[in-house]
């Protein structure tokens, strides 16, 4: 019994401490990356390693953003590494952005329209399609990659951003479809009927009544699609070749292939790669709850 009393008084404190510790462990990798990225080269390899940089510098970020060629120390001399990947960073960032936005827009539009049709009209396949989509979602992307690559070869689209957009559609559309379908189902049909009686055509009903109400679901699906597209490596690796066209994920891995790894630069790149999605996620978190709540709980 005394445990109970002890718990009642200290329980909250214990939990709080546990949560703090947990959060530290979970966030440590990124925190450490951030810390490394702000350190000058001399401090990165210093022992003992410090969490907070003693002499913080933005040179790594500057290098990435401006595409300045990088130097590194080698035997007390500054050696130019030539055309290092850092020069392409902004280009890659833009590529990732374009591809992500493109595939997200396509997936959202297609799945929202289809979800509306499936839930408001009666025809064969109206329950088959969403479940089929869910199955499609569960197929690992490694199975999609090579057939799609061959398709791109035939269409002569290899090494283009468009091929990536299409590839990403294939992996984001299934789940978006499932999510939008589940969400549309939960929108009461009476509102649309009221609009129909009020004199609206189907298209007007869709535009004025359904879309605004479906917004939380759309946002949730969009966040999902964007995260998947932005984070992907496999498709980029298989579809793309030339340095110009790489996406962030594929390009940054290249940093690592070289003989000399500039850790500070690499960590800065990692941070910059994570920031967009993280801020998007944090900013729209509350919409996610509404969207996912009505949709896939088990997804």
């Amino acid at each position: 019994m005394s445990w109970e009393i002890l718990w009642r008084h200290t329980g909250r404190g214990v939990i709080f401490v546990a949560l703090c510790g947990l959060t530290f462990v979970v966030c440590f990798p990124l925190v450490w990356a951030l810390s490394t990225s702000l350190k000058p080269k001399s401090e990165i390899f210093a022992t003992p390693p410090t969490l907070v940089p003693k002499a913080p510098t933005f040179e790594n970020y500057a290098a990435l953003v401006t595409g300045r060629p990088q130097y590194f120390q080698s035997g007390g001399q500054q050696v130019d590494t030539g055309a290092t990947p850092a020069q392409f960073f902004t280009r890659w960032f833009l590529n990732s952005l374009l591809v992500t936005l493109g595939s997200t827009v396509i997936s959202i539009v297609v799945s929202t329209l289809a979800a509306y049709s499936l839930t408001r009209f009666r025809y064969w396949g109206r329950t088959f399609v969403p479940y089929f989509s869910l199955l499609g979602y569960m197929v690992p992307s490694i199975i999609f990659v090579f057939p799609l690559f061959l398709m791109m070869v035939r269409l002569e689209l290899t090494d283009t951003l468009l091929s990536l957009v299409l590839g990403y559609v294939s992996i984001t559309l299934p789940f978006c479809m499932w999510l939008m379908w589940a969400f549309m189902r939960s929108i009461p049909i009476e509102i649309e009927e009221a609009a129909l009686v009020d004199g609206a055509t189907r298209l007007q009903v869709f535009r004025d009544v359904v879309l605004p109400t479906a917004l939380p679901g759309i946002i949730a699906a969009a966040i999902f699609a964007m995260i998947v597209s932005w984070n992907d490596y496999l498709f980029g690796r298989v579809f793309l070749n030339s340095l110009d066209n790489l996406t962030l994920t594929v390009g940054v891995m290249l940093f690592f292939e070289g003989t000399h790894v500039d850790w500070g630069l690499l960590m800065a790149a990692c941070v910059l790669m994570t920031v967009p999605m993280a801020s998007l996620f944090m900013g729209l978190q509350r919409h996610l709850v509404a969207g996912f709540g009505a949709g896939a709980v088990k997804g």
Partner: protein
Amino acid sequence: MDVSLEVINKSFGSVRVLKDVSLKFPSRKFVTLLGPSGCGKTTLLRMIAGLETVDSGIIRFGEKVVNRLAPRDRNIAMVFQSYALYPQMSVGQNLAYGLRVRGTPKEARAAAVERVARILEIEHLLDRRPAQLSGGQRQRVALGRAMVRKPDIFLMDEPLSNLDARLRITMRAELRRFHLDLGATTVYVTHDQLEAMTMSDHVAVMNGGIVQQFGSPAEVYGRPANLFVAGFIGSPPMNLIHGAVELENGAPTFASEHARVSLRHLANRVHAGQRVVLGARPQDLRLVPSAAEGNAHGRVWVVELVGSEKLVDVDLGDKRRLTVQVRADAPVLEDEAVHVGIDPHDVHVFDAETAQRVSGRESAVPPFPGSEPLGRREHFRPIATSWRD
């Protein structure tokens, strides 16, 4: 604009929801479709609105056949059970929506919205969202949406069922008034017979997809066409006693184990040996002092005081009970032995097999009522305090 429904049939899958329904609603009248859940009344309403297809039969507004018309082309307005206000739009935008999709210019829209808001006293709510309104306010916005467009036909699907009891009572009168001001033909769906009685010009009582009776409130109350209507209308419900017709001194008499009532005045309508059900409303029964005057005898099972009246449940034996309504100050005690007096002219007799009314000339559904006078001024009690509370 009158509404005619001619031999309407509808099935959902293998379930027949409406069976050969034919009704005519006279122009500018308030008609209620009344019945228990699943009787088809909402389906019928939605078919008038154009939200459900008609399997067979014709729906006319005036002379025009409307079966194939989309809701937007029917010039109707509808209030849904949940009001169905557009959640992302303000009240003002909700009201204006119907005009907006028809291309009405901005100034005309604003003027119409203002006029309606003033009448319904919701001007101060125009900028709010539906989620911020109370139930009663939402309903008024729903009514406003209908009013703004000046429809020919106004449909309501159980609009009061989401309100609390007190609000319901005030809203009944307001809806009736609203109908009169609007000047449209109103079709109202409800399962609450009290609403039907207080607000309607005509009532269509439905059960199992079939119209049981179509008439004025007075008619369905005072001359129920069959057992279903008799038991459904009226609160507390009509007492129903099963028995048979016997000959007593040559005159037909209703006889059951526990009650005997003379049916002399119905001599030409019943025959000896016919199994019948006798109906008598609690308001038409009395407690009489002596056994000689009484048609049934028993013991008081429970007395319920309902304000201005008392409802006395009399146990006749074998769990058969009669509910008798007496004055509030009548001295009745539980477990007391009493005698119930039944006036032969106040009873309703139904054939046990067909469930149809035996007395009176009304059968279940005249094909196209509306031009018929509202029933003879026969001997029936004036609609007294029974269903007004």
